[in-house]
Every structure is written in structure tokens, then in C-alpha cells.
């Protein structure tokens, strides 16, 4: 099962010659590895839009293409779409701007705290895993921790304890987030890195939304070697 979703990724890469894997192929791959993502519908034909009706509104519309790695830079993400007629109009507008590229319709994930989890191949040490917390602040302050694979649960806990933002995990003000779910997610990424490290140059989950009892990967990117 999990092998199939990765095979589709390899097939895509060999058919297009692209090392950058679009999100509509990465998300099913993550799901097959037990990672929580928002409910989604992939829209390749206009008729696929009908299936989006089963999603809980509001939803997000994204363009899923190897040409636009950073979707927000090309305004390829539209948040807070309230109903199906608005979705239809937005999808049509996306079609005009991005042509026949697949679209991804996803349920919005509530508030929470943004975290990051990623795999990256290091020239010297091989596959490494990185975590960070605080959304853009993790990026600005470089508040991240890295280890070489494989890692254990104790390693993940130590990584969390190295973050300046570790207080968020222990309950800061009225913020409550699920440390156990995040730890699980990091271990699942570690397992992916070990299994597919031969092929993967990097895998990014950013942001991962952490809530009171969930850790959901909202945006994911993959690059092959």
C-alpha cells in the first residue's frame, strides 16, 4: 500500500523529468504512512469539483505543480472559501492563471501552533531530520534541531528540549498542544527517511499545525535526488 504511493511519485518523476514532486502526490504518500493531513480532494478535471462537496467548509484551494514550489509567491493558495459556489468561481480563476495544473481542495485546520518537520540529505552524514516550532519565527530565529537518522523517541524528546520554543509544548499561557502526536509524526518521518532515503533529497512539512489533540501536516513538499 505505502509502496504504491511512492511508486506513483517515481513514475511522475520519470514521466516529467521533474525532481520536484507536487503536493497532490505527496499528501497521499504521507497518508499511507500514517501521517495526518487535512481531508482533501484532488481536482484534475472540472467535474472533480463535485467531490469537494463532501468536505467541511471553509476550504483552501491550492495549485499543485512542480512549477510552483512556493505557491504563496505566485498567489497559488486561496484560504477561507466558504461554500461550493465560491469554490467553483475560484477554481475557474485558478484554471485561467495556471492552465491545466492539478488543484488541491483541502479542509481548513483550526488555529493551533505552527511547527515544521523535514528530512534533508546531508553530504557528509546522509539523511537527517529537522524539527522547529513557531512558524515563520522558527525560520527567522533558526530555532531548529537536527539529528542524523535513525532516531528514537528519546532523541525526538531531546530535540524538542533543545528548541527555544519548547515552552509551547509544556503549555504556555492558554496554548495547549499535543506533544505526543508531534513526537509520533517526527518518528513517522524518520521511518520514511530510512525507507526512501535512497531516493529522497528532502521532504518538508511546513506548517504542521499542532492543536490540543492533533498534529496535522497542512503543507508538504518533496524533492528527489
Amino acid at each position: 500500500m505505502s509502496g504504491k504511493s511512492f511508486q506513483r511519485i517515481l513514475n511522475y518523476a520519470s514521466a516529467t523529468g521533474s525532481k520536484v514532486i507536487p503536493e497532490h502526490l505527496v499528501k497521499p504518500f504521507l497518508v499511507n504512512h500514517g501521517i495526518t493531513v487535512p481531508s482533501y480532494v484532488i481536482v484534475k478535471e472540472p467535474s472533480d469539483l463535485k467531490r469537494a462537496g463532501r468536505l467541511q467548509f471553509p476550504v483552501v484551494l491550492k495549485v499543485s505543480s512542480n512549477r510552483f514550489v512556493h505557491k504563496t509567491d505566485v498567489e497559488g493558495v486561496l484560504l477561507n472559501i466558504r461554500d461550493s459556489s465560491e469554490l467553483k468561481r475560484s477554481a475557474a480563476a485558478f484554471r485561467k492563471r495556471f492552465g491545466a495544473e492539478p488543484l488541491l481542495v483541502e479542509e481548513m485546520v483550526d488555529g493551533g501552533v505552527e511547527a515544521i518537520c523535514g528530512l534533508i540529505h546531508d553530504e557528509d552524514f546522509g539523511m537527517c531530520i529537522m524539527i522547529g516550532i513557531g512558524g515563520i519565527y522558527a525560520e527567522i530565529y533558526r530555532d531548529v534541531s537536527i539529528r542524523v537518522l535513525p532516531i528514537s523517541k528519546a532523541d525526538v524528546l531531546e530535540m524538542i528540549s533543545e528548541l527555544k520554543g519548547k515552552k509551547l509544548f509544556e503549555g504556555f499561557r492558554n496554548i495547549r498542544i499535543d506533544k505526543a502526536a508531534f513526537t509520533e509524526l517526527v518518528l513517522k518521518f524518520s521511518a520514511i527517511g530510512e525507507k526512501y532515503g535512497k531516493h529522497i533529497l528532502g521532504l518538508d512539512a511546513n506548517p504542521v499545525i499542532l492543536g490540543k489533540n492533533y498534529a496535522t501536516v497542512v503543507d508538504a513538499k518533496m524533492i528527489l535526488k
Partner: protein
Amino acid sequence: MSPCRRRRKRFSSLNCLIHPRSVALIGASSNRFKIGGIMWSHLQSFPGRKYPVNIKQETMGGVKAYARVKDIPEKIDLAVIAVPAKSVPSVIDDCIEKRVKAVIVISGGFSETGEEGRKLENEIKSKILNTEMVLLGPNTLGVYVPRERLDTMFVLRDKSRRPPDGPIAFISQSGASASGFMDMAESHGYGISAFVGLGNKLDVNENDMLELFSKDSKTRVICIHIECFAEGKRFLQLCRKITISKPVVVLKAGRTEAGARAAMLHTGSMAKPSLAMEGAFKQAGIIRANDLLELFDYSRILAYQQPMFGPNIVVVTSGGGYGVIAADYIEDQNVGGGLRLAEISPDSKRKLMARLPSFASVDNPVDLTGNVTDEMFDYVFKVVNEDENTDGILAFPLLQTPYTTDNLVEIVWRWFKNGRKPMVPCIIGGLHSEEVIRRLESRGMPVFPDIRRAVISLRVLYERGRYLMRMRNKTGDAR
């Protein structure tokens, strides 16, 4: 040959780099102003058999010289080569024919100079492939092994002194850092078990040396300065095994950038290779140094002091000002130790109050003020060594106070040697202090002339202790 047998053979050849029974110096000279002459004179301290090889000279200082290494009638364990780069390949041919176990190519003019030099290196590489000979260098100072009195370095001894025999193995990719480090070690009275200069790492690399020194009973700490990893994964693998019994301190200079494609990902742009290395080092129990002074400080503290198994530090001082600065550094996460000021137990406080005069402060920092006597220091060291809330001691035995005597340093020495808890002394001052520091250091006690360096050394001892505790928990060892 099976891989296992090949590894054993390689190990025995590597061993000849530092424990040869016979040495040939190819390019030896009787002219003491030439590199080959300096090296030949340094080689005279080696008590084993040594042979000068020089194509033009028949004798050298009354000893028969040989035109080629193959002409030497005995087996040669180690050949040291100091001839111009372009002549090296043919000398290597001779060494292979002679079945020399190990060669050191001192000569420069190889890949460090450009394409031509790289070609020469590749030529040599293909020659030694499938032989049992190992090659150190090229472009290296070679080795210095005090216990064998083996010295292949061409830096003059009066300009760059050689340290005595001791517990630190020093492996370096840089000749400059090597002579600087060893000169520094000598003047502080620390010994080394061996120095090995890696040079361009054509064949022998840091991983070979890790294997060699992990099995060397004289080596208690392995200290490495490198600019690139020969094989990073293997390096970590070896260190994971070694650091359980011996500390490894690494200065890895030269930052590398993430590839352009990897930088498309957030993880790729944030997870710089230097950050990945930080994580990797932690996992393998490697202590990381950022410059030569740190490499020196961390190696000596780990070689001469026991690990610390908790973060709680007691400061014992006779100068209040030092205590306050030290307290700040102890707790500071960024520029200091990220440690804790110990909360001295009520019982210990009572003991201190019972015997110390009223002017002394029995809170941490314990401040004995300018009226301190030798006996007060001695008593405080005794109490804090027994204090259950204390993991380590930072001592400021001021030499300038009127009622203390020369005996104070003996008291510090005794508690350093016999105390149950690691103690790091910090002595600040001018010429008089330096003399005292030298005296203590020559007896194997690291002393720091700087508060921050003393605190960071305690942090390193704690880093080491914490790693050992974690590994013991992992393996289920009860200790």
C-alpha cells in the same frame, strides 16, 4: 583476501606509522639548513634502526647512505619521503618493491596546488591500490610519537617545542595548528600520546586514526582538527563506539553550504550542514570545539579531569567579584555554561558556618574574602565535596591575599587529585600567577587563567557526563 583479513593487514600497516622498528628517510641530507637535513637530525632521537636515503651522497654523518630504498639490506617499516613532488611516484615504486609497510609523504606540491598536483596524487593512488602499504600525506608534517622518540617534523625544535609523552592523541589536517597546539601543550606541561598530520589525505584519513587510537591504551582522549570528512557516516559510526570509553574532541573548520536544489525546501535552507553536524556530533558523543584554544582546553580538561554527572556548581572564592562574574557565566545559556549555581544543602551550610568566621558568605558563591587562610579553603573544599547538592567545583584560590601561603596551591592540588567531585581552578594574575599555574599544570592539573574558559570547561565535563549517563541507561548498565 577477505575484508576482515584486509582490515587486519591495514591496521598492522597503520601501526607502523607510529610504532615502526625501522625507518628510512628518503631525501635525507647532511646539510642542516635543508629540510632533509633538519629531519635527519630530528630522526637521530629515534632509538630503532634508521637509514638515510640520498641519491647523491654515499655517507651521512659517518653513516652509510643508500641511493635507493631498495638498496637497504633490512626490512623497512616506515619510509619518510621528503623529495620534490615530481620524484615522489618513482620513490613510491621503490617502496612498493621493497614492501615498506607505511610511507609518509612530507613533500608538498600536490592537489593543494592545482590540477597538475592532483594528477600526481592520482598517479600515486593507483600505484598503492591493492598493496598492503599505507600512505600518510602528502603535504604533511608527518608524525611525532614521544614514547617512541619518533619525530618526522621539519619544524625546528627550538621554535616549536615538542610535548612529552601523555594521554592526548592529536590528529590534524593542518601543519600550522599542529605545531601551534604542540608548542602550547609543551609550555603548559601536557603530554601527547602521538601526533599524526593527515595532510591531503590521499590514503590514510581521520577514520583510520580513530581506529588506531581507539585501541591505543596510552590514549585517553582523541583530539581532531579537520577541514573535510573522508567519509562522514563511518566517522560517526566509529565515534559512537569509541566515545563510550574515550572522549573525542573535534574541530571541524570550513563551512559548507546546502546545495541549490535542497535550498528550495525550508528544511534545506534552514538545516545548514553545520547545524546537521551539530546534531550528528551530539548523537555520537563528540565534543565540538570551534577554535584551536577550545580544542586545547577541552582535550586537556577531559584528559585530566573526571566527567561531571550533574549541572550544579559551587563557586569557592576569596574574591567576591570573581564569584559574581562566574555565577553569571555558569547560568548563561548562550555565552556561558548553561549550568546551575548549586543550592548548598542546609546541613553543609551549618558545617560551613560552624567553622568559618562571620565575614565569610556560606551561600553560593562561597566567598571567603581577603581575610582567608589556607585552612579555610581546605575546610570548604572538604564540605562541598561531601555536599549532596553539588556536582562540580569552580575554585578561585587568589594568590594575592595576605594570610594565604604557597601551601594553598598544594591544598588545591590535593583536592583536585583526591576530591570526589571535579574541580576546575581559575587563577587570574600576572607573572607570579603564571608561574604558579605552570607549576600546577606540569603536575597534570588543568588551570585556567580566564573565568569564562573555566566555566566552559565545566560545561564540557557535564556534557561528557550526561552523554555517559545516557549511554548507560540505553545499554541497561546499572552504573
